[in-house]
């Protein structure tokens, strides 16, 4: 009994740390899908792209992966703005975003993955940083720094984005465009420009999320697929477009997944995310903190 209590506490702590990281991966989807109604299923592919860029910077320049992710923010921001412009011109303007827009992002996901396979091969890649090996020991609970650093970074990014969205003019405009684009237009603001900014921010978060991913685990191009289900599960579970809901959903999923992996074996954990997603969609599509 004593042993299983230790195991339980450890699994929950690890789950919370994992959940923080999941929140970093999902926050982009919460903005793009939850607020802008852009079903960017290629989001995890951008995360993997971020991982590989962090890997390149780490192995060639010896740059810390998180610093590498920060340095890449402008590049990913520009990439996001570009993708949105193509999406707007080709689909949103014509009102064809549902079927063809979805196919567009599905294609992007596939292209990114195959391109990474062609360039880097299917070997697992990893980075080196001083905090990847050691752990903290608080009583019987072990806290690996490899998990703690990404979790703290993710929470910082989360807090910054929450402040940005609720306090600044542009942030409020993004929230407004998610509520009523027409009304925003009547206030003489340009919804297209604001959506472009928001989508660019959502892609920019993947530069950081990718760097965090490659700190937590070795990465190969198809790892992204496991995250498609997770990010949408978290986004829907927490409530569309609600950032606190996203954080809550991410923590919940992290804990449940870790408990499953600890007590039943890791090969079952992918089914947890998707099972949770199916259940949420079937029972409460609005999510926990949904509007």
């Amino acid at each position, binding site marked *: 009994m004593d042993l299983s209590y230790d195991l339980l506490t450890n699994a929950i702590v690890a789950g919370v740390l994992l959940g923080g990281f999941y929140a970093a991966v999902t926050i982009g989807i919460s903005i793009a899908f939850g607020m802008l109604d852009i*079903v960017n*299923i290629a989001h995890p592919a951008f995360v993997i792209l971020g991982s590989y860029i962090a890997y390149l910077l780490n192995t060639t320049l010896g740059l810390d992966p998180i610093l590498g992710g920060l340095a890449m923010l402008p590049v990913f921001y520009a990439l996001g703005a570009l993708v949105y412009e*193509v999406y707007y011109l*080709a*689909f949103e303007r*014509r009102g*064809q975003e*549902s*079927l*063809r827009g*979805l*196919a*567009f992002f*599905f*294609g*992007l996901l*596939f*292209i990114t993955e*195959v*391109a990474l*396979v*062609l360039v880097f091969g299917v070997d697992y890649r990893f980075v080196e940083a001083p905090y990847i090996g050691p752990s903290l020991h608080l009583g019987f609970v072990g806290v690996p720094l490899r998990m703690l650093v990404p979790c703290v970074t993710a929470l910082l990014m989360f807090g910054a984005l929450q402040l940005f969205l609720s306090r600044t003019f542009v942030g409020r405009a993004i929230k407004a465009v998610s509520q009523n684009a027409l009304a925003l237009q009547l206030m003489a603001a340009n919804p297209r420009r604001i959506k472009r900014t928001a989508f660019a921010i959502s892609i920019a978060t993947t530069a950081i999320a990718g760097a965090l991913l490659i700190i937590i685990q070795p990465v190969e191009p*198809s790892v992204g*697929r496991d995250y*498609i*289900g997770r990010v*949408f*599960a978290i986004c*829907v579970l927490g409530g569309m477009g609600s950032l606190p809901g996203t954080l809550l959903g991410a923590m919940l999923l992290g804990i449940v997944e870790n408990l499953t992996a600890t007590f039943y074996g890791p*090969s*079952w954990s*992918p*089914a947890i*995310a*998707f*099972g949770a*997603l*199916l259940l949420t*969609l*079937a029972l409460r*599509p609005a999510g926990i903190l949904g509007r």
Partner: protein
Amino acid sequence: MSNRLFLPAALAFGLILFGACRAVHNDYVFFAGYVVLQYVVLATAWNLLGGYTGYVNFGTAAFFALGAYSTVVLHKLFPLPIPALMLVGGLVSGIVGLGMGYLTLRLRGVFFSIATLALAVVAQTLITNWDFVGGSRGVYIVRPNETPILGSYVQYLFLAMLVLAVIAVATARAIERSRLGYGFAAIRDDELAAEASGVPTLRLKLVATTLSGAFMGMAGAPLPYYVTYLDPASGFSLAYAVNAIAMPLIGGTANWVGPLVGAVFLGTAQQIATVTIESALNLLIVGLLLVGFVIVAPNGIVGLVHGRARGRSS
């Protein structure tokens, strides 16, 4: 051409095709042709739901692999001939399709698509953890080398898939011009308005998801005998889902010709690219073509041809 004439005509065309392939005296034609035909079935099946009713299914690989794995189970218990295996695979995937149809009660549009993706991963996890069918290690299937009438076994598989492809295309064509087809189109254009004007939307959607799933399962059923080694990663490969979406969208989703044209064009191109260039590169080509076509030619190849014909006549 009426439906009653179309099926025999298509079958006759299929048999001529089979004869022509035999005249080549190279089994590779059958080996590659099988894959193209399999994609004709998958693309047509996807279009029954995606093109006609507008519900985008990302879980093609799940239905396909469930068909394949029901064959694996039967192979271990009591082996059956290929056509019977196709029926069983179709039944299993059809039932899953029916379940997916009930999801549409709560989930419209994008949420449905995400749920199908989720369904695929849950199914893959279940199969991966099921040791009876090999688990994550995969399973070897020993198949006979020869069959009594045709000679080589690959030709037998090819013929079975050919007949299935003809049936799938004929079904799609028949549905398109029936009450059912008009009902599907009404759902695609405006589900609420269709419901309000008395279209039995739920029943129609259940028919679409079940039929679509069943055909995908049937296409997957012979797979273990074709590849002789099957593991979850290859059975549930994302390539099936991408191809099943890319082929109708590139060909054109409006009618039965589109998926057929798309599957033959893209499937053949992939087979050629696999032997001449590299197999990873051919997937890249599919992705690029998909993105290119949805941006530049939203109505696919069929739309382009129609547009040109209309331009000339006016």
